[in-house]
């Protein structure tokens, strides 16, 4: 037995008031008369016993006291801790990433999963149901609830476009239920068996996947660049189809949806295609490409890119690798080689090998190597994080021989083995912790694209907030909490603080306003969301216990409320029969 609301104990004041009133009530003035024959003719039964007489005489008082005490008792919300045996908890891990919008048949995978979850709930009457929505921060939509409210939650679910991060959700569920056991259903497109390390846990896993092969043309990459002669845009397509399905790519202005150019693609099964648009005349600040064709997964059929209107001059250290200069010159007309002369630091974008520029100027720089520490030998493979910087070209197959020690507290974007390779400073500087000579990267075709990404992300930071993945949280430079608008002008939400911005879920171009400046941000699907995987549905794990003890706090209100009402009724009856207490 416990109390939920001990603070309500103050209501004891009420019965105390009555007691005090009783103690200080009017005294009877004694008076001897010849006979009380006519005064108490009808109260002869009071002479039965002093106790009963007292009870009868003060009936109203006692009843009122009892009613008030019951009332106070109920305000304390008495409860009983009950240990109940229940059904095995049922846990749904719902993949709400964009790939769930794939439509192998008439409805999307997500809708199919919703139907399947409801079917499961119908046969799971009385079992506690929990629903975990996957994502970088898994959301527990409902925990240990009944199936009726679970159905309501399921009906209200929607796709979040965010990368699913199923491993995080699985770990969460494991930590919640590994002790008592649970039946976990994972609804996704595909999940490797190795993802479920179930040893030592008392849980059974049921993976519901997409077993339908999908015809999917996806826009894997889309970049646009403004040059003097016009806008250049590159679109990379991936065709996960079984048959050749030609189609078209439309380049549009993001805000007005005016079609600027259209190109066709061949759509050969399993192939990749690169389509480029050149000399496009537009003043739009953001572009959109759209894939027109037969497709079972439409979420990756459009992509957005920001066009910077003003470009900073790129200044490259002359000590750096020759291929870097070439790469810089390939992506930008205006490239200066720094031979030591002075530049206006505010208007240039510096690619340098000198750490001293990290503190100079307000604009972030691209630092390659470090000049005041010695490099160490690098071991292991290169791995990259999910940063928009790598959304076009990731340095995955790169060989790194030597690596510099990292800057403490800087964000790590890529690693060699366990050591940081690429870092980002709080100001936004991109730091490659290796000399280009110590890597084979400049020889790789992704290198110019990476340089382009770096230059673009560094220069765009001035007017745009850059590229986000759905629901991604990034630090931004805004003067106060920003209002997020769609490009069409309708208000979406306000960010919680000035420095942090969580991107909207749906891909597209958005406008963030902090009152003084408007900045654009693009939301692009994560590259992992651009292909719909297929996999087998399977079950694994074992559930040994069949009953789960659960301690539950059951409030005990009714057994006290009914006597309270009864006491009140008796009070009225006593009052009706006896009049005021005398």
């Amino acid at each position, binding site marked *: 037995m416990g109390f939920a609301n001990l603070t309500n104990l103050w209501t004891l004041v009420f019965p105390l008031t009555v007691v005090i009133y009783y103690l200080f009530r009017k005294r*009877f003035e004694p008076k001897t*008369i*010849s006979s009380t*024959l006519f005064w108490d003719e009808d109260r002869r039964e009071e002479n039965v016993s002093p106790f009963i007489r007292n009870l009868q005489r003060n009936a109203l008082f006692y009843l009122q006291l009892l009613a008030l005490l019951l009332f106070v008792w109920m305000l304390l919300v008495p409860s009983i801790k009950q240990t109940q045996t229940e059904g095995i908890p049922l846990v749904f891990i719902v993949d709400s990433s964009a790939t769930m919008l794939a439509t192998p048949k008439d409805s999307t995978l997500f809708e199919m999963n919703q139907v399947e979850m409801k079917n499961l709930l119908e046969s799971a009457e009385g079992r506690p149901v929990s629903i975990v929505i996957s994502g970088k921060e898994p959301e527990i939509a409902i925990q240990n609830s009944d199936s009726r409210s679970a159905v309501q939650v399921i009906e209200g679910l929607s796709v979040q476009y965010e990368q699913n991060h199923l491993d995080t959700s699985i770990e969460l569920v494991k930590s919640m239920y590994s002790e008592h056991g649970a039946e976990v259903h994972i609804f996704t497109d595909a999940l490797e068996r190795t993802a479920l390390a179930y040893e030592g846990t008392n849980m059974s896993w049921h993976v519901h996947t997409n077993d339908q092969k999908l015809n999917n043309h996806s826009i894997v990459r889309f970049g646009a660049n403004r040059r003097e002669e016009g806008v250049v845009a590159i679109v990379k397509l991936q065709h996960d189809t079984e048959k050749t399905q030609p189609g078209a790519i439309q380049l549009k202005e993001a805000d007005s949806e005016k079609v600027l150019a259209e190109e066709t693609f061949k759509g050969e099964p399993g192939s990749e295609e690169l389509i480029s648009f050149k000399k496009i005349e537009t003043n739009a600040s953001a572009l959109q490409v759209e894939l027109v064709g037969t497709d079972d997964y439409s979420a990756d059929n459009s992509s957005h890119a920001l066009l910077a209107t003003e470009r900073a001059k790129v200044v490259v250290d002359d000590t750096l690798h020759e291929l870097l200069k070439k790469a810089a010159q390939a992506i930008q007309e205006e490239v200066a080689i720094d031979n030591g002369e002075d530049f206006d630091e505010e208007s240039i974008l510096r690619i340098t090998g000198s750490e001293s520029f990290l503190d100079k100027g307000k604009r972030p720089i691209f630092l390659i190597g470090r000049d005041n520490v010695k490099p160490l030998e690098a071991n292991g493979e290169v791995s990259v994080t999910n940063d928009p910087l790598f959304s076009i070209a990731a340095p995955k197959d790169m060989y790194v021989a030597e690596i510099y020690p990292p800057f403490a507290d800087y964000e790590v974007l890529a690693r060699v083995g366990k050591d940081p390779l690429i870092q980002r400073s709080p100001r936004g500087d991109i730091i490659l912790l290796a000399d280009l000579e110590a890597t084979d990267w400049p020889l790789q075709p992704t290198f110019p694209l990476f340089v382009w990404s770096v230059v673009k992300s560094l220069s765009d930071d001035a007017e745009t907030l850059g590229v986000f993945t759905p629901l991604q949280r990034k630090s931004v430079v805004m003067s106060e909490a920003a209002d997020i608008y769609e490009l069409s002008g309708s208000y979406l939400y306000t960010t919680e603080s000035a420095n942090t911005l969580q991107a909207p879920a749906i891909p597209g171009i958005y406008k963030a306003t902090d009152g003084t400046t408007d900045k654009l941000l693009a939301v692009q699907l994560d590259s992992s969301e651009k292909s719909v995987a297929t996999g087998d549905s399977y079950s694994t794990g074992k559930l040994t216990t069949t009953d789960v003890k659960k301690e539950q706090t059951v409030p005990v209100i009714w057994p006290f409320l009914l006597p309270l009402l009864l006491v009140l009724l008796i009070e009225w009856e006593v009052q009706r029969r006896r009049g005021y207490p005398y």
Partner: protein
Amino acid sequence: MTSFFPSSLSARLGRLSFVQHGGRLGHHKGSHVSKKTGASLEFSDFKEYHPGDDIRHIDWNVYARTDSYFIKQFLDEQEMRVHIVLDTSKSMNFEDKWKFAQQISIGLGQIALKNSDTVSISRMVSGKKQLFTRKGARQAGSWMTYISRFEQPSETTGVLEGIHTIPKGTTLLFVVTDALEPNEQLNLLFKQLSTRCRDVRVIAIRSKSELAPTYQGDIRFIDSESEKISEVTMMPSMENAYLLQQKKHQLRMMDSAAKYGIGVLMITPQTGPEDVFTIQMRRQGWIR
């Protein structure tokens, strides 16, 4: 002492006499005309002689004229024996009830004494009976003195306990009480009284606040005899309930009195003794 029983009232009482309802009078000769024929000087009737009649009463003049025997009948005058039972329970000692009871007792005794009848009064004092008997008009003074010296009543018993004090041969019995007893007891009392005397008259005295209580506020009433407690918050509804209870009690008392042929007179000190004797008792047909 004159203030206790004014002499003017004594004078008025001298002209009154009791009306006899029961057939039986005392054994002694007295001034009250009996229904039976007797040996008084007043002629009543003639009746034919039958063997066994007293031959001394044969009217010889009538025999001489009619040659048949006629008996000359005379009215019988017999003495009336009046007894008064005075309730000495504590409840009588309330407001001016006791003084009034004394006055009524004195008055009743004087009426009897003026008519040369025997009058006696009995009461319980400290659990013992006290009887006082007087006869003859000359005794009126001592009668008044004796009763006026009665101490305050202090008995906790009812009239029923004193019923054995009633002398035998009582022709007229007065019970002076307040009748503040439960109806069951009163019924028993009336039953016992009716066996003692054929003509019983109960005088019930109720004081002003007994008849219509005028208390205010919250009062703990203590019964003077049983010391029972009754706590009352005075309200019109409570007063009405009291009056209703009193009325019920009175009606039931009247009922049981009528059953045993007992007359009951409800009086109150407010009216004064003169009014009781000259008006109320006359109206009741007790006195003429």
